[in-house]
């Protein structure tokens, strides 16, 4: 018998359940406990770049909006720099820019929304460039392990043709599920379909 591989196993995921808001966004859920809520300010006041707003709904397999979602965003700044020590350009990240956000849906309508700056081009592997994108992670009751996806911007169509993630999607028509709709200058709509017709592409990152 061979030696045992002594790696630990990752802690298994469980659903965030229906009350995820009181733990991760208590202020947004109307529960006043922390002096300072985390994740409400993605870009900060001073970060350079185009200010944008993104909103959308998450639909279940029956076409109904999911009203108990928690959504997190991770993104680069307007110059494509992540506010993280492993980004080689981290020292040049926009002042006050954190790049991480967390929002919950409106309990009555299911609508979520956040404000940020539009990210820049992010370096990809092997010298390739990634089109501007937001990394999204969604959890909710009924979702056993958080779902990762990406939001791309419609005006960057030319860059999408060479984006290393979009071009990995075999079925051409599914790529459009990752591209937001521009509804007004600086305003985008991004609906996520968990299941069925028009199902959003989800990523194993």
């Amino acid at each position, binding site marked *: 018998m061979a030696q045992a591989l002594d*790696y*630990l*196993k*990752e*802690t*298994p*995921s*469980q*659903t*965030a359940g*229906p*009350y*995820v*808001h*009181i*733990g991760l966004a*208590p202020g947004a*859920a109307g*529960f006043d*406990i*922390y*002096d*300072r809520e*985390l*994740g409400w300010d993605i870009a900060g006041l001073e970060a350079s770049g185009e200010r944008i707003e993104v909103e959308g709904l998450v639909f*279940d*397999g*029956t076409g*109904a909006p999911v009203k108990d979602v928690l959504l*997190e965003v*991770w993104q*680069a700044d307007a110059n494509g720099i*992540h*506010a*993280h020590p*492993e*980004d080689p350009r981290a020292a040049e990240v926009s002042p006050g820019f*954190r790049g*991480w956000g967390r929002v919950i849906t409106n*309990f009555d309508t299911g609508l979520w929304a956040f404000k940020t700056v539009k990210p820049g081009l*992010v*370096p*990809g*592997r092997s010298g390739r460039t*990634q089109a501007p994108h937001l990394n999204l*992670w969604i959890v909710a009751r*009924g979702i*056993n*392990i*958080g779902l990762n996806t990406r939001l791309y911007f419609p005006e960057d169509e030319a860059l999408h043709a060479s984006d290393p*993630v979009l071009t*990995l999607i075999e079925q051409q028509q599914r790529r459009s599920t990752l591209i937001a709709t521009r509804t007004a200058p600086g305003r985008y709509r991004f609906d996520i379909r*968990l*299941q*069925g017709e028009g*199902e959003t592409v*989800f*990523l*194993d*990152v």
Partner: protein
Amino acid sequence: MDKPAEFYQRDRDWHPPAFAPTYKTSVSRSPRQALLSLEQSSSEITGPVFGHNDFGALDNDLIKNYAKSGDPIGERIIVHGRVLDETGRPVPNTLVEIWQANASGRYRHKKDTYLAPIDPNFGGCGRTLTDAYGFYYFRTVKPGAYPWRNYVNSWRPAHIHVSVFGSSFSQRLITQMYFEGDPLIAKCPIVNTIPDPEAIDRLIAPLDMNAAIPLDCLAYKFDIVLRGRRSTLFENRLAGN
């Protein structure tokens, strides 16, 4: 950053599948198409960084952080442990957040209509950063079991929801901690979304008498393992740590 050090592939046979029909809500909230697996880039190997300025002094003490007229009712416990990665290395300075019901199984949430009462001195959420060695701790009361509409007589075992970040967005994890010896664990449709009994064991915190405080509170130990990461074995192939 053209060849970042990647995190190990997540073992999705170890985690619960998206579609687990005995947990009914998963039926309409699970993708039907396969996930698209990515080689990691800067977008995946970076993630948010938190500092002590983000927190208040009582954020990890659920006995005191919502106390209005006294301490909450319930079994006083410490929940502590380490955050490690799959190679056994500690994950320092990472954000751990928890939320839970009170001792009678009621959440302080307007959508929770269970007839058990709210505790006026208990909020039910806490957060902390792991220290330089990956250790974290909370003080709280042991949550109660509660009923939920799955089958008509479904009851969740006592549990604490746990959210952890790690150092990258690809390590992001939400799970639930259960308590050693709880007979409801084996009956729970959410627990049983996990196919491997050994994986379920990883979510059950043992009683830890060594960490109990005599005449004050008991303790449970809950270690959390996040995805590990490649090291540089051959420098002409992989950049990394």
